[in-house]
C-alpha cells in the first residue's frame, strides 16, 4: 500500500511555474564559498591544479603533513562533448576503463577456450556494448564518488573550476557559472595532465573520436579505424577487435615508437594473427561523411617514408585518433608567473618537480621527458609533498619503472630496451638472453604461442647487472611487477638464474633462461620440465 504524500495537481502546478522560468536551476556554490564574494580571497599553503593521480596524491600527502590545501579539477569537454568527474585521466578515460575493457574482451576469448576444457556452452558469446559500457561507467562513477568523499575526509578543499595563474602566488578558479574565485597560496603544484591530439586531416575533429570518448561511447563502435600505433592505439584496437568489431590500425611510422622494437613486433604479430588489420607508414588525409552516415577515410604514404601500405581509402563506422597527447598548459597562464614550458609539447621543465619558479611545482603527465604513468605521478606527488611540508628529502627515482601494454597478448617490461642498452653501453658489452615459451594453459585450446617470448639484457662484465627485462605473454603486468623490485635492488644475471621458478607459471621462464642471442642457438622451447 503506497501513501501519496503529495497532491498531484499542486505539484504539477508548481512544476508549471518552474517551467515558466525555463526550469531555472538554483546555483549552489560549495559551502565554503558561501561566505566569499567574487572578490573573496582564500589563503592556502598549497593549491593543486588538477585532480588526477599526481595532484590528488600530492594534496593528500600535503594535508597529512599539516598543510592547508585546495585542489582544482575541471574537465574541458572533448570535441565530441564528452565530460567526466573527479579523478583525472587514469580513473575516467585511461588505465581503469582500459583495463576493464581489455579484461572484458579477454573474457570473450576465455568463454570460447572453455569449450576445449569440457565446458558445455550453448550458443555463441556476443558482446552487448551498452551493457559492458554501463558496467564500466558505473565503476568509474563509484571511484569519482569515493575520491570526492576522500578529499572531504582529508579536509582538502575541492573546487570544480578551471584554474589559471594570476601570479606566482595567486590561482584563479573559474567556476561553471563563470564566477571567479581567487586563491592566495604559498605554493602551486601543476598536475593538469594531457589530452588527446587530433590529426590534421580534413574532418578529423568533426568526425573522429579519441580515447576521451571510446569508454563512454553511446553506440557500438562497429568497424573501427584506429589512427596511431602507440600503446593507446594498440590497446584500443586490441579490445575492440576482441569484442568482434573489425579493427584497423594506421601507423605513421612504427608501432610503439621508443619501445623495444623486437617486442613491439611480437605484439603486432599477435594482433595481426587475431584479425587486426595494419596499414603501415600511412597518414589519413581526409575524413568525410557518407550518405548512410558512415565515415570515408582517405589516406596516403607518410611524407618522406618509403614502402608501407601505400595510398588507399575505406569506409568505417568509427575513427579513433590516438596520435599523441598534449599537455594542458595553454590556458594556465603560466607566463604570468614566468614558468618555462616546451614550445611544442606544452610540457613543463622541472628539476625534482620544481619549475624555474621556486614556489611552483609540477607532477604527472605534464612533466617534460618523464614516464606518463599513474604510479609515477602518484609517487612523485607524494614525495614532493613530503619534501615541501615534511622532513623527508627523498627524491623521485624515475629509473626502472615497470610498465605494461595491455594489448590482447600483453607486453610488460622494466628497464632498458635493447636499442637503448646498445646506445648506452655498446652491443659488445651486452648479453641478451632470450626464449620462446609455451604457457601450459594455451595447449588445450590450441592458442597461438608463437609470440610468447621473453628477453633479458644484462652487462657482459661482472657483476652482470640486469639492464632490462621484457615479457610478451598473458598477465604481463602481474609477471613483471615483482621483477621491478629486483631491478631496484640491482639484480644480477647470476641472481636471476639462481632463482627457483614457480611451476607451472609463465613468470618462471625468467629463471630458466639459458640461450643468448650471441650463441645463435634456437630459442624455441624443448621439453617442458627439463
Amino acid at each position, binding site marked *: 500500500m503506497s501513501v501519496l504524500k503529495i497532491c498531484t495537481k499542486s505539484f504539477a502546478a508548481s512544476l508549471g511555474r518552474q517551467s515558466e522560468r525555463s526550469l531555472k536551476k538554483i546555483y549552489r556554490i560549495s559551502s565554503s564559498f558561501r561566505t566569499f564574494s567574487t572578490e573573496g580571497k582564500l589563503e592556502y599553503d598549497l593549491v593543486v591544479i588538477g585532480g588526477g593521480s599526481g595532484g590528488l596524491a600530492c594534496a593528500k600527502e600535503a594535508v597529512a603533513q599539516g598543510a592547508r590545501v585546495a585542489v582544482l579539477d575541471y574537465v574541458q569537454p572533448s570535441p565530441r562533448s564528452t565530460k567526466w568527474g573527479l579523478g583525472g585521466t587514469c580513473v575516467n578515460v585511461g588505465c581503469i576503463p582500459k583495463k576493464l575493457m581489455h579484461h572484458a574482451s579477454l573474457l570473450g576469448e576465455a568463454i570460447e577456450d572453455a569449450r576445449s576444457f569440457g565446458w558445455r556452452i550453448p550458443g555463441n558469446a556476443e558482446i552487448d556494448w551498452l551493457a559492458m559500457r554501463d558496467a564500466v561507467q558505473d565503476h568509474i*562513477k563509484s571511484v569519482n564518488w569515493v575520491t570526492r568523499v576522500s578529499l572531504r575526509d582529508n579536509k582538502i578543499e575541492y573546487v570544480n573550476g578551471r584554474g589559471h595563474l594570476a601570479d606566482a602566488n595567486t590561482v584563479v578558479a573559474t567556476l561553471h557559472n563563470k564566477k571567479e574565485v581567487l586563491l592566495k597560496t604559498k605554493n602551486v603544484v601543476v598536475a593538469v595532465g594531457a589530452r588527446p591530439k587530433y590529426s590534421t586531416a580534413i574532418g578529423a575533429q568533426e568526425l573522429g573520436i579519441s580515447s576521451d570518448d571510446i569508454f563512454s561511447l553511446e553506440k557500438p563502435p562497429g568497424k573501427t579505424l584506429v589512427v596511431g600505433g602507440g600503446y593507446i592505439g594498440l590497446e584500443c584496437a586490441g579490445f575492440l577487435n576482441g569484442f568482434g568489431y573489425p579493427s584497423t590500425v594506421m601507423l605513421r611510422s612504427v608501432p610503439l615508437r621508443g619501445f623495444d622494437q623486437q617486442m613491439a613486433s611480437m605484439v603486432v604479430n599477435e594482433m595481426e594473427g587475431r584479425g587486426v588489420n595494419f596499414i603501415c607508414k600511412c597518414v589519413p588525409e581526409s575524413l568525410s561523411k557518407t550518405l548512410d552516415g558512415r565515415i570515408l577515410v582517405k589516406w596516403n604514404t607518410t611524407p618522406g617514408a618509403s614502402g608501407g601500405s601505400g595510398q588507399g581509402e575505406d569506409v568505417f563506422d568509427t575513427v579513433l585518433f590516438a596520435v599523441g597527447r598534449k599537455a594542458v598548459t595553454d590556458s594556465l597562464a603560466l607566463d604570468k608567473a614566468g614558468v618555462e614550458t616546451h614550445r611544442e609539447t606544452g610540457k613543463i621543465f622541472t628539476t625534482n618537480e620544481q619549475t624555474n619558479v621556486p614556489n611552483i611545482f609540477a607532477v604527472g603527465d605534464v612533466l617534460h621527458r618523464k614516464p606518463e604513468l599513474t604510479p609515477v605521478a602518484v609517487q612523485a606527488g607524494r614525495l614532493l609533498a613530503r619534501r615541501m611540508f615534511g622532513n623527508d628529502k627523498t627524491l623521485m627515482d624515475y629509473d626502472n619503472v615497470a610498465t605494461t601494454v595491455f594489448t590482447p597478448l600483453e607486453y610488460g617490461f622494466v628497464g632498458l630496451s635493447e636499442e637503448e642498452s646498445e646506445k648506452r653501453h655498446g652491443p659488445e658489452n651486452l648479453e641478451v638472453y632470450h626464449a620462446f615459451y609455451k604457457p601450459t594453459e594455451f595447449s588445450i585450446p590450441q592458442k597461438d604461442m608463437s609470440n610468447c617470448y621473453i628477453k633479458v639484457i644484462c652487462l657482459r662484465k661482472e657483476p652482470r647487472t640486469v639492464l632490462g627485462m621484457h615479457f610478451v605473454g598473458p598477465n604481463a603486468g602481474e609477471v613483471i611487477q615483482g621483477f621491478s623490485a629486483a631491478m631496484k635492488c640491482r639484480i644480477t644475471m647470476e641472481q636471476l638464474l639462481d632463482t627457483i621458478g614457480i611451476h607451472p607459471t609463465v613468470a618462471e621462464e625468467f629463471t630458466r633462461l639459458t640461450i643468448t642471442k650471441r650463441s645463435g642457438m634456437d630459442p624455441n622451447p624443448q621439453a617442458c620440465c627439463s
Partner: protein
Amino acid sequence: MAVHQYVNSLQELEAAIEQFQKISMQVSSTPSRHENTEHLINDFPIFIIVSGTKDKKGVSWCPDCEKADPVLEEAEQSLAPEPSAFITVYLTREEWKNPKNVFRTDGRFRLTSIPTMLKWPNREPKLVEAQCADIEAIKEFFDECCPQVQD
C-alpha cells in the same frame, strides 16, 4: 521544493517513478524533446531512498535509517535540487535480511546496505549507511548527481 512518495515494494517504486516521469513530461517546457526522457534525468531528478519500516511508535528497526531520517528531511527541504522528486522504499527486516531480496539482486540497484540514497537510474554515486546522516556528504552527493550548469 521537492515532492515525496512512500512505497513498500519494487512494483510500487516502478509505478511511482513512472508517475513522476509522466507528470514532468506534461509540463516540460521543451515539447520537442518528448520522445525520450534523457533530459528529465537532470531536469527533474528522482532520488530513491531505501530504508527500514517503522513500528507503531514510528521507530525504524534499522538504527542507521533512524539516524538518517531527520537529516534526509532537512536535506530535502534545503539542499535538494529544484524541482526534484523523492521516493522512499520501506522494507521490513525480513525482506531486507533475505539475500534474495530484489533490491539486492536487481541489476538496477544491487544494494548491499540500507539506508541507501541514489539518483534514478544511476547506481553510482550513492549514499550509504552513515553517509545518509551526514549533511555534508548529502550536499556533495547532490553536487555530484546534479552538477551546476550555466544559464
